[in-house]
């Protein structure tokens, strides 16, 4: 029952996302036929292009065609390259997914321990330092951090490569750039959640039983503090998947975000619509997984 409801909800979300992106693109000033023909094209040439892209048909008809093709798994063709949008996405999507996952690993590896540490040292200098660090992490623009990392590790000391995704070392700098910002968010959430559980009676009981602090934190406190942390990780992963345009551009990453922005600038409607649809679907699936994970962590949660 839960799954049926969730699947139907996801379908609704996707239809909504497709409709919104379809409508918003067409409300945006700028004409795809003109964009494709270029600023110096003769008027008759622009009209030829418009006709060849079916953009001279009424918008309602374009919408019906788009939605019915979408239902069949056909997302149309790129106006510019005439490549099927599905192929464009297949070429870009894995790169985005891989970078998001490695960034999330960095974020979890840094953020969770930092948050726990800060919570344990509540009110002490270590707590303040940790939280200031995470504050810096949240506020630092990824563009600036990325540039800093490139100049330091790639140009000055030539330790790490920074362009493309063809070898494992290429992941280090972009993952750090994206991961550190997210780590800061996770650290703050972990701290807050840990503080709440560390004050609970069962933690005092655990301590009273003479358990080591490590066991108290790991088994009793963290497990109970995990639900909000997992939730924010799920949300942040969604954000990573959709919002890394700047980092992708900086590190020459052939990802989905850059594809969408490039296509938007060229008013390549079909590619933008396809990209947004895939992001929406990913977000929906991530939400579902997060729900399931929270349920596994805390059986009291009813789905």
């Amino acid at each position, binding site marked *: 029952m839960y799954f049926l409801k969730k699947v139907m909800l996801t379908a609704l979300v996707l239809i909504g996302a497709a409709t919104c992106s379809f409508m918003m693109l067409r409300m945006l000033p700028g004409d795809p036929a003109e964009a*494709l023909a270029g600023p110096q*094209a003769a008027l008759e*040439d622009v009209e*030829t292009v418009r006709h060849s892209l079916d953009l001279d048909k009424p918008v309602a008809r374009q919408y019906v065609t788009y939605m019915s093709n979408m239902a069949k798994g056909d997302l149309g063709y790129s106006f*510019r390259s005439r490549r099927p949008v599905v192929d464009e996405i297949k*070429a870009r999507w894995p790169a985005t997914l891989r970078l998001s996952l490695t960034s999330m690993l960095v974020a979890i590896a840094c953020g969770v321990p930092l948050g726990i540490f800060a919570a344990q040292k509540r009110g002490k200098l270590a707590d303040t330092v940790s939280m200031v660090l995470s504050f810096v992490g949240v506020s630092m623009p990824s563009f600036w951090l990325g*540039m800093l990392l490139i100049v330091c590790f790639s140009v000055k000391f030539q330790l790490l490569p920074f362009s493309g995704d063809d070898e494992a070392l290429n992941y280090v700098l972009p993952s750090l750039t994206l991961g550190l910002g997210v780590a800061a968010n996770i650290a703050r959430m972990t701290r807050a959640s840990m503080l709440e559980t560390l004050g609970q009676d069962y933690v005092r009981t655990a301590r009273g039983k003479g358990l080591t602090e490590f066991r108290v934190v790991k088994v009793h406190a963290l497990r109970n503090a995990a639900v909000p942390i997992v939730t924010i990780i799920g949300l942040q992963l969604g954000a990573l998947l959709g919002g890394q345009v700047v980092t992708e551009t900086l590190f*020459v990453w*052939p990802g989905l975000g850059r594809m969408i922005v490039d296509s938007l600038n060229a008013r390549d409607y079909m590619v933008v619509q396809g990209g947004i649809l895939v992001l929406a679907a990913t977000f929906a699936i991530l939400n579902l997984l997060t729900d399931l994970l929270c349920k596994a962590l805390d059986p009291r949660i009813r789905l």
Partner: protein
Amino acid sequence: MARHWLKASFPLVLTAAVMAGHALAATGYKDLVVGTGTDASTLDPHLCTDSATEVINKNIYNNLVRFDSSMKLVPDLATEWKLAKDGVTWSFKLRPNVTFQDGTPFNAAAVKFNIERVLDPKTASARRSVLSMIKSVEPVDAVNVKIVTSYPCGSFLFQLAHPVASMVSPAAVAKWGNQKFGLNPCGTGPFKLVRWDSGEKLEFAPFDGYYEGAPKLKSLTYKIVPEDSTRALLLESGRIDVAFRLPVTEIQRLTADRTLGIITTPTIMTMYVALNNQKGPFKDPRVRQALNYAVNKTSIVSDVVNGYAVVADSVIPPGVWGYSKVGGYPFDPAKAKKLLAQAGYPNGFEFTLWTPVGRYLMDKQMAEAIQAQMAAVGLKMKIQTWDFQALMSEVKKGQFDSVLLGWSASSADADQAMYPVFESTQWPPNSNRALYKNLAVDKLLNDAKKEVNPVNRARMYKDAQKQIMTDAAWITLCYPKQSVAFRYNITGIEVLPTEHVLFAHTGKR
């Protein structure tokens, strides 16, 4: 200036060989990696419309005629041509024994196929009108072809050098169809496509059958690096060999690096402010002249773009055939104020300048400099910045006060450089964005279109340029330059004012 700085003046042959020597390593050829800002759109030259992709297509295809680095028309796939006395029949002798990269012979039938493909409405070429004056193509034998135009067309040969007139393999088009040919391109050029990873890179191998001999490289790769500063860093760290389209600030920084060379050359673009000639105070030519006097172009060129442009002395640049140095308006704020007073605006007026951001060389910064200079003569100019596509849509409505733009005629002939932007039937939604109208200029531009005598044509265009400058249709600003930066071990890069960069004779030590 550093000694690695090559400031080539226009008619020079602009090859990197000058500075970097030309000894190729005897032991095997190497891979050349070029960093460029945008991915290719389509590798079908008949459908391609953006100059970034044209640059890449130049590796795959040849035309019948082409430009050399001084913008002279020289033989490419045609070795000789002649215009008959009727003024409409052109005979071309084709280069013999040329084949396409798939082995298809290049011949008169291929020429016919290509031109007819561009003209066929089913192809939906956005550059169809470049060749629309062609009435028929008649192969005489394998290496001789006659092309008949519907009127005596003075700019005909220039149109044939346009990227849309590239020769593609008829067999490859038949095999892949119009939809997929752009992903499986095939021409007669020095490089053939091996692999294209969307958004990431395009990889080429030398074509052994190239008529000038295979390039002396193992491979040619275009790496898509959208961020300017990343492109510069990659070049500095030696991960790419050549970088295109670097911003002025990066170029200046790289000049100090002794492991790099930089070629700076003119382009065939004019940057201008289109004043809406049919709106408010701009209806009065004295006001438009005043604005021209008010703008300090010399300061814009030296301070805003750091010398990466030349002050314009006509509405078309020297690289375009038909250019005539008619002289612009010197910086003279006192005269500007006087003219404004004469026109009835002693206290100035308010208007808005629209500008794209990052589309043209330092466009927004130029607008800001102009704003300050307008204020000095009592004009209150507001700046409105736009996304480029949105700007073009709005400009088509013709309701703006003024807009900062660039115009470059990719056929490098005065007809395409002037007719669309100054002839009065070409008002928005067409390209005469200043809504300029002068019947004398209309006549000159229409007559010159149908004049095949070069001397007469040149005179007509000279008269037109003079008149347009006197009428001050635009605030004519400058001709931007372009820069290509490369590692010291790269030789033989050819940079054309059309912004095409050729690697057919490039080597890597």
